[in-house]
């Protein structure tokens, strides 16, 4: 197992390098210019000076190398220093600076992460909590009215995109009923019950939309996996031994059915960090997804590149974790 993990981790390095290079080149080739937001009253010579000040005067491979150095050495040192509190860990010197804000990319990401984790993370958690029981019961009472209703809801969740359900909820709950605010207030500090209520109100709609979406997917996996197991011989054996239905379903069947579901859940975790780009946009949640979109519009190359590569790392990492979890949960699987 250890050698397998090490091998995979080592293999991930060239993969990530390649991903970073491809993203960088794509950004390089795409049209657009960080100066495009500037008013036309700024003359071309000044724009040129500003571009040079952003470091755009150098050849692409030099810029890529510089970014790679900053990304793999300088930025991790700052992250480590912030986490441990040991200031001597910091590598001094320049950091990856956003074109738009001229401030370190990592600081902005750190500022946006909480919103995304709260809204998207919570909806993922809720999604799992809702989906697993529904999936179990749907499978146990296959083709019952509960199963039919569950299937219907999950089909709705699957097929209605968040850019439809989002504005629909805003229309109903914000504009007609006036229950929830349209604009997500990131400055809100939860220090009292009133503010906690405010936070709940502003999170309600985005969390609901994403929960529906996440739950829809996980329910289907859970149900299918339960159905596979319910017809197995060991279930009949368990019943023959005189175990109660409760033990049969919740202990024997559920544990075995969870194996594929857990890996699916693990694979989905990176999407919590990448943020629900569309949903964040719709509900004005200033999270990582909104950050990425804004950076793409502003041709903020360092920001887009850094975010994309961080996402790539998370995806590669959680793929590995899913594989390892699989082996841990299912003794039949051995990688060595």
């Amino acid at each position, binding site marked *: 197992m250890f050698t397998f993990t090490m091998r995979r981790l080592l293999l991930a390095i060239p993969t990530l390098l390649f991903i970073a290079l491809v993203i960088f080149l794509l950004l390089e080739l795409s*049209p*657009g*210019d960080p*100066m*495009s*937001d*500037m*008013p*036309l*009253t*700024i*003359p*071309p*010579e*000044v*724009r*040129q*000076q*500003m*571009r*040079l*000040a*952003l470091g755009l005067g150098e050849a692409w491979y030099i810029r890529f190398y510089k970014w790679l150095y900053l990304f793999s050495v300088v930025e991790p040192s700052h992250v480590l220093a912030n986490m441990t509190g040991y200031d001597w860990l910091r590598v001094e010197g*320049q950091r990856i*600076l*956003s074109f*738009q*804000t*001229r*401030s*370190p990319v990592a*600081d*902005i990401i750190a*500022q946006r992460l909480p919103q995304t984790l709260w809204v998207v993370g919570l909806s993922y958690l809720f999604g799992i909590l809702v989906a697993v029981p529904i999936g179990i019961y749907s499978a146990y009472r296959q083709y019952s009215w509960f199963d039919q209703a569950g299937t219907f809801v999950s089909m709705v969740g699957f097929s209605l995109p968040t850019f439809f359900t989002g504005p629909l909820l805003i229309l109903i709950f914000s504009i007609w009923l006036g229950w929830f*605010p*349209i*604009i997500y*207030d*990131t*400055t809100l500090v939860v220090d009292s019950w009133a503010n906690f209520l405010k936070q709940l109100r502003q999170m309600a709609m985005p969390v609901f939309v994403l929960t529906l979406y996440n739950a829809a997917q996980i329910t289907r996996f859970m149900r299918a996996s339960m159905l596979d197991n319910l017809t197995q011989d060991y279930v009949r054996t368990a019943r023959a031994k005189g175990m109660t239905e409760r033990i049969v379903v919740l202990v024997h069947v559920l544990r075995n059915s969870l194996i594929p579901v857990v890996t699916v859940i693990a694979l989905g975790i990176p999407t919590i960090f990448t943020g629900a780009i569309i949903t964040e946009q719709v509900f*004005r949640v*200033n999270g990582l997804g*909104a*950050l990425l979109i*804004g950076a793409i*519009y*502003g*041709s903020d190359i360092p920001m887009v590149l850094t975010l994309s590569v961080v996402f790539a790392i998370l995806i590669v990492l959680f793929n590995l974790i899913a594989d390892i979890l699989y082996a841990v949960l299912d003794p039949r699987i051995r990688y060595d």
Partner: protein
Amino acid sequence: MKRTMALFGAATALAMMPLAAHAERGASGHLNIIYWQAPSILNPYLSGGTKDVESSSLVLEPLARYNQNGELVAWLAESIPTVENGGVAEDLTSITWTLREGLLWSDGTPVTSADVAFSAEYCMHPEGGCAQAARYQDVESVEIVDERTVTVHFSVPKPVPYGPFVTAQSPIIQRAQFENCTGARAPECTDANFYPIGTGAFRVVDFRPNDVISFEANQNYRDPALPHFATITFKGGGDAASAGRAVMETGEMDYAWNLQLAPDVIATMAQGGRGVPISAFGTLVERIEVNMTDPSPDLPPEIRSTRAAPHPVLSDIRVREALSRAIDRELLVEVGYGQAGRPSCNLVPAPPIFRSDANDNCLEQDLDRARALLDEAGWVVGAVGIRVRDGRRLTIDYMTSTNAVRQDFQALIQQWWREIGVEANLRNINASVFFGGDPGSPDTFQKFYADVSMYANNFPGTDPEAYLGAYRCGFEPRPETQWQGENINRFCDPAYDALHLQLAQTASIEERGRIGRELNDILMQNYIIIPLVDRGRLSAHSNTLGGVVLNTWDSELWNVAEWHRL
């Protein structure tokens, strides 16, 4: 006697009370401002974006600025230096500014001439990439005369020496804070760029890039009774429609900036009754720029859309005039801008002294005249109503940036041109590409790979010298300049250049006005530029917000200190 005195005193106290309550700093409480473009940085020298300049104007202030009528008013300076009061040298090569007495930074330290000189040094650093470098053009040195006085020396005579330290674009920054942030180190000073120390009515408490800023009243502000508001939340992001809704319909916000929305949308929102739209006019003109060179893709890239290849159709002034005559500007205003627009026949629509009235005949749509002009030019109506000459159809590539109003304009103008027998192929390009200036992209407005292109432009301040200077020979974008340049039409007329040189050497304002109008008329009467709409600024404020004076010549938040709750 005593009683009368006491009564009198009580009466006075009573009379004073509302005033006193009003005059107290911070008495109006909290203000919510929404800009649908979110500020990224609070240092206007590092970003020319309007959102960044205006949000930082709450904190940073210039020596002088323009008021709502486009008149220069002293701000941090004692008075406006002129030749008459001796502040500007007779030979126009220097200007001397004197700071007001007793000015303090928000951290309590005094503002001195060293800070003023440093602001210039900061922006003029060759490696700094200063966005406002154009305002410091031709500055040779900034001399510190005494604690409160600086003299700016120019390398050439400057008839209008009000570039440096004037308007929200070139404010005074604190030397102590930015001392170690010049040149290449400028972007490293994140704290200074996010939390600048200023002389303005407010100071930054919390800055979240591209999201929200919290401000509080500056306790060291020069007027002890101002600002009326104690705190401000400056929210950024979203879109113009939801910003307008938040002020006029739901009342969540007090002030929304630059609502570029269709007039009927604004009207519907205004019915919400919580706020009112306000508008004011500046120098922004939506126009169609005509390409004087051939953008044909058959040409080799080094001469395509350059002066080496004159345009085969649009070089003919009669065709250009016909295109302009066919347009109904009144209708365009009605459809696209409503109260925030008016028809324009000039490139320079304001200030009054520079506004020509020689071109007002464009206001009337004249399709017959347009048709006659095309007939005269030898274009005859062909089979499907499109004119033909020597086997070539009169087809025009018409590009602009992606924007709902611009696409409406394209459709209307295409229709009018169709009526005079001109076919227009419409194209719209994402604004970040169109205005991006990437020399590798074929779709930038500088490259102009189209026959006509539509966008808006204006000039900062009230003097159009630099703006009109863009249309001189040699300023056109071309391959040798990596397609950078401001003479988008590739217009070139030595007589125009000579007249512009004259403008650059003239100091008298009447004379400048005359020459400016003449330059504008040359461009208009050659139909190099087809002006469409003089675009005003439309913002909205809540019914409970008083003191707002919309100013298009400077930051919209220029007088925020005087805003108050009604």
